[in-house]
C-alpha cells in the first residue's frame, strides 16, 4: 500500500503529540498513516455506491434468511415468524456439523497424560442429585451386579460390589464435576480406576468404545428409562477416570448412583453415569442417551 503523498504538508504544532514527523516518513511503525485521498467522477461514485449497497444488502438478506432458518421452530413460532410447523430439509445438518467439529477439537485437546486439577477437602462444594428423571428406590441394590461384555475372553463376567472392592485398589480423588448446564461442584470420590478394570478384564482387541448402561434409571414419572453412555476407551484409561464406590468418604447413596458410578472429570457431568449395571466393549460407537437428544457425543471438557 502506497502511503506516501506528494502533497507534503507543512509541519504543524503537535498538540496530540503523535504526528511529530513529516508525512513522508512515518516516525514509527505504530504511527497512524495519512489517509489516501483521490478524486473520482461523481457518476462513478454513484455507480460504486449503488453496486456496493446492493451487494451488501443482498448479503444482509442472505445472512438474515440463513440465520433465521437455523433457529429452532418453537422459537420462530413464539416470535410469530412462522405460524405452522415447517420442515426445512437438512436444516439441522449445519448445526450438527459444527457440533462434530467441536467434538473433534475436544478430542484433539484431550491427552491421557494431562491430569486435571485436584482440590483439598476444604474446597469441597455441595453436589446436588441431578438425576434427570425420578431417583430409583434402593430395592435394586441388594441384587446389584455389574456385567461385563465384549471381553477378549469372549465370556460375560458378572461381578458384585464386594468382588470389585476386594480385588481392586481403591483410590481417592477430589475433582470438579462440570455439568452441561453450567454449574459445577468439587466432590470427593473414591473407587477403582477404570483402567485397572480394563487390565483385569481386557476388552476384545478391536474394541474402541465402552457402552455403559444403567438399567435401573427412571424417567420423570418413575417409568423405566435405561441410561446409556458412550465412552471412548482412551478416556476410560485416563488415570483419573474412576468407577466410584464412595462419595465424601462414605459408600455411594442412591442419589449419587449406588453402588457404582462413573466419575470421569475430563467429560461433562452427563457422561458420569450413575448405578452402572452393564459395561459392553464395542468396535463401533455406541448410542448415547443425551447425544440422541441433540447434545454432543464426545462431551470432552
Amino acid at each position, binding site marked *: *500500500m*502506497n*502511503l506516501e*503523498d*506528494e*502533497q507534503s504538508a*507543512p509541519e504543524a504544532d503537535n498538540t*496530540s*503529540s503523535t*504526528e511529530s514527523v513529516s*508525512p513522508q516518513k512515518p516516525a514509527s511503525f*505504530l504511527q*497512524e498513516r495519512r*489517509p*489516501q*485521498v*483521490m*478524486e*473520482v*467522477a*461523481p*457518476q*462513478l*461514485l454513484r455507480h*460504486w*455506491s449503488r453496486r*456496493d*449497497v446492493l451487494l*451488501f444488502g443482498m448479503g*444482509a438478506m442472505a*445472512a438474515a434468511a*440463513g*440465520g433465521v432458518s*437455523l*433457529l*429452532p421452530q418453537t*422459537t420462530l413460532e413464539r416470535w410469530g415468524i412462522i405460524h405452522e410447523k415447517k420442515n426445512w430439509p437438512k436444516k439441522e445438518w449445519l*448445526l450438527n456439523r*459444527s457440533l462434530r*467439529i*467441536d467434538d473433534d477439537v*475436544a478430542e484433539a*485437546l484431550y*491427552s491421557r497424560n*494431562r491430569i*486435571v*486439577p485436584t482440590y483439598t477437602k476444604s474446597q469441597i462444594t455441595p453436589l446436588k442429585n441431578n438425576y434427570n428423571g425420578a431417583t430409583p428406590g434402593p430395592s435394586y441394590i441388594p441384587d446389584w451386579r455389574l456385567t461385563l461384555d465384549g471381553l477378549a475372553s469372549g465370556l460375560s463376567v458378572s461381578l458384585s460390589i464386594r468382588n470389585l472392592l476386594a480385588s481392586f485398589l481403591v483410590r481417592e480423588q477430589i475433582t*470438579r464435576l*462440570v*455439568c*452441561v*448446564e*453450567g*454449574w*459445577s461442584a468439587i466432590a470427593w470420590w473414591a473407587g477403582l480406576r477404570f483402567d485397572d478394570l480394563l487390565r483385569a478384564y481386557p476388552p476384545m482387541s478391536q474394541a474402541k468404545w465402552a457402552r455403559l448402561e444403567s438399567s435401573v434409571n427412571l424417567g420423570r414419572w418413575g417409568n423405566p428409562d435405561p441410561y446409556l453412555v458412550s465412552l471412548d476407551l482412551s478416556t476410560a484409561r485416563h488415570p483419573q477416570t474412576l468407577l466410584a464406590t464412595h462419595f465424601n468418604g462414605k459408600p455411594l447413596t442412591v442419589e449419587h448412583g449406588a453402588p457404582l458410578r462413573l466419575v470421569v*472429570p475430563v467429560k461433562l457431568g452427563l457422561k458420569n453415569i450413575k448405578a452402572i449395571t452393564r459395561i459392553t466393549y464395542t468396535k463401533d460407537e455406541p448410542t448415547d442417551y443425551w447425544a440422541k*437428544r*441433540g*447434545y454432543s457425543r464426545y462431551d470432552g*471438557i
Partner: protein
Amino acid sequence: MATTRVAAATPVPHSVAQLDKEPVVTSAPERQGGVLVLHRHHLLVRCSHWLNVPILLGLILSGVSVYWASPVYQHKPDPQTGNVDPLADIGVWICAHVPGLHQYSNPPDWVYNHISLGPGMLAVALRLHWFCAYLFMLNGLVFVIGSAMGAGWRSLLPRRTDLRDALKMFRYYTGLPFAKLTRRTWPHPRFKTKYNALQRVAYFSVPVVGLLSVFTGWAIHKPMQLYWLAAIFGGYDKARMWHFWLMWVFILFVVPHVILVLADGWDTLRSMIVGWSTRVERSEDFSQ
C-alpha cells in the same frame, strides 16, 4: 458515462483500484467535476464488521438460553414462585405491570421467551452457540487480516492524550442535544486523526472484548484441558461471570454506536459499506 475514469489526485490506493476494475489514470489530474474521496475501511474490515451483526445476535440469543439452564446470579427462592433467577423476576414484574400481559401463561419465562431462543432449549442453543462461536473466531481473523492489509489498526491504537480528549468528546456528545434545543453553537472538538479519542477507546476496546470473550468462552468450554486458561480468569465459575459480563459490554457498546452513527449521517454509515467517505476535510486537518 463510458468515458469515466478515476482521476487520481494522489496515487490510487490498491484496494480501491481493484474494486473499480478500470484502468487507473495517474497522469494529468482532471480536477473539474471530480469529488474528493477518502479511503476509510478495507474491504475485509467492512465484511467482518457486518458479519458481526448476525454472529453476535446468534451468540447472545443462544447464550441467554444457555444461561437459563443454570443462572450465574441467583437469590434465595422466592416464597411464592420458588424462583431464584433475577432475570426471571424481571419477566414476572413485566407481566404484572405491562397492560395486555396480565394473562401471560408463564411470567418467569417472559424474558427468556423474548431475548433468547426460549427456555428449555439447551441442546439446540449449545449447537447454535458453537456454530456462531467458531464463525466469530474466523471473523476475528478476517478483521485482523483486513486491519493489517488496510493498515487501519494504527488508527485504533490508544494514545497518551486519549483520556483528556475522550472526556472532551463525551462532554460534546452529552451537551449536543441541549445545545441544539437552545440553539447555541456547540463546536465539535477538533482532531487530526481518523478517529476521535472516544471512538478510539471504543473501537480499540471492542476487539479486546471480543478476544476476552473468546478466551473466557474456551475457559468454560474446556475447563479441564485448558484449566490454566480458566485459572487466569479466577477459575471456572469466575470465568462464567466474565463471559456473561463481556456480553453486556458488547450490548453497551452497540447501543450508543448505532445511535451515533445514525446521528452522524449517511456518509459515515455508507463508508462502512462502500469503504470511502467524501468527508475529506478532516483528513486535511490530519496533515497540517
